[in-house]
């Protein structure tokens, strides 16, 4: 049996610049921080990045100048502030950028996951979102059409099939069978739409654990190319049932992200000067801080 256990560094080495990646986080939850830091350390650039609702992970990548094309449905760092780097990039037009909605991105992934080249949808009509898509390079991904059965008008969305999807999960076995606790947003569709699927897991469990509740398996192992076992891999964002978000660090991040020069310092301090995610966790406060953030088993946070 092939060994799927890989480090974030190994996986990122296999990703060429110019890749279309999809990230599985949402605002301040289950962000692929360990992977994104490694993408920044290895300076994988000219990425296409697609995501339903962006958050810290995408803000980091965009701020680091590695994203050439962003396809997203919105996003922020919730009450901690906006996604400053993403917003700045949109304002300065420093990247190609297409705005969608949560459901339309989800349907584009669903089409990809089902092997359909497109899906009809009943949103976007009469909005500036559709207008701008149709007026720009995004026009090749949307088309108005009429249902041949009912005559109803639809927007057809081209399937999104990322080259690589990353999803952060709580539980996986060595074969890559994954369970996700809490809300899953578009993770299942985003994962299954991709050509390559990489999961980062908080915990590796024996397959026997998966077999005890196989109804909970959201991603089956045969679709998974690599499993990165990185506990606390999403910090400072939260992972339901494992740990809370680190509010102090998120505030610190937002303060830095407001200005390009300060953001560079953040990258220097928390990304470039760390060899790996373990070193970064030390900078967050190490084990004592992690114990403060550890979720209680009833509430999950």
């Amino acid at each position, binding site marked *: 049996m092939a060994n799927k256990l890989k480090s974030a560094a190994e996986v990122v080495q296999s990703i060429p610049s110019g890749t279309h990646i999809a990230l599985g986080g949402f605002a301040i939850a289950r962000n692929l921080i360990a992977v994104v830091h490694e993408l920044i350390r290895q300076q994988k650039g000219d990425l296409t990045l697609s995501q339903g609702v962006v958050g810290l992970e995408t803000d980091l990548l965009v701020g680091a100048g590695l994203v050439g094309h962003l396809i997203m449905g919105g996003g922020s760092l919730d009450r901690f502030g906006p996604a400053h780097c993403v*917003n700045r990039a949109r304002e300065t037009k420093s990247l190609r950028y297409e705005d969608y909605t*949560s459901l*339309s991105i989800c*349907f584009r992934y669903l089409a990809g996951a089902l092997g359909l080249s497109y899906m009809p949808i*009943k949103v976007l009509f*009469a909005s*500036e*979102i559709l207008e701008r898509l149709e007026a720009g390079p995004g026009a090749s991904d949307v088309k108005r059409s009429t249902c041949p059965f009912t005559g109803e008008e639809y927007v057809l969305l081209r399937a999104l099939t990322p080259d690589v999807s990353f999803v952060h999960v709580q539980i996986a076995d060595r074969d890559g069978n994954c369970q996700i606790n809490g*809300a899953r947003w578009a993770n299942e569709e985003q994962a299954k739409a991709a050509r390559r699927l990489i999961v980062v897991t908080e915990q590796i469990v024996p397959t026997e654990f998966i077999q005890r509740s196989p109804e909970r398996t959201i991603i089956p192992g045969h679709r998974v190319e690599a499993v990165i076992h990185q506990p606390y891999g999403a910090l400072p964002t939260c992972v339901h049932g494992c740990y809370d978000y680190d509010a102090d660090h998120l505030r610190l991040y937002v303060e830095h992200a407001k200005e390009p020069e300060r953001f560079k310092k953040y990258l220097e301090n928390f990304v470039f000067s760390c060899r790996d995610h373990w070193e970064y966790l030390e900078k967050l406060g190490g084990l004592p801080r992690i114990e403060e953030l550890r979720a209680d088993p009833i509430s999950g946070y």
Partner: protein
Amino acid sequence: MPVTEGTKGRHAQSDIRATEIMAAAGARELHDGEVVVVGLGLPEVASVLAKRTHAPSLATLLETGVMNPRPKDTPVGLPDSRSFYGATCLSGFLDVMGMNLHRGVVDVGFLGALELDRYGNINTTLVKDDSGKVRYVNGSAGGNDVASLAKRVIVIMRHEKRKLPLAVAYLTSPGFVGGRSRQELHLRGGGPSRVITDMAVLGFDAATHAMSVLSLHPGVGLEELKANTGFPLHIPNEIATTPLPTAEELRLLREEIDPTGVHLK
């Protein structure tokens, strides 16, 4: 009971805050057995209040894939674990927004707005300053989806002239664009039905689809309302006064639903 504060101090005649009037007005718009997609903040507070009073079977859905949460701590955002607490179903976009919202079984979508125009068009994407400089804020997330598909939409927001302009700086989520019917716009959902602000409850005129005053909160005058609105309002012959929350509603809001005043400050 606390002394009134915030929101322009318009309710000095009582100790009831504008946010409390808004929450109660929002709750009254929700009927028992309905399905509502809510955002966090006042929409959530209003739906919990409705559930604890006249609408115990209200189903509350969050776009992330959460149904009927009963948070005991205040979430910082939709994906925060605090918003999952007590949920009866945890799934994802495809379930909540595909198999409920797009399916056509969501009665009410409860939204906020950066800007809202007279036809109920919502901007949640960017703001433009007077010089025309653009500052991006967020985007649609589920907003356009909800506005397009829910049977009716309730917007809850602060009443400020710059937030209620003649034309939104970016049309993220459509209401009755250009005063046209939803059918003409190819939209399935019924569109905006209520706007609940800290000054008034507003609706939309059936013929013109333009925003219309339904009731003014106690102590708010019509001229004050007009002065704080960036577009001409449809003024019907009779304008009611928004009912104040009942004593029981106030007790629930203050003692049980938001005791630390996170949303009702």
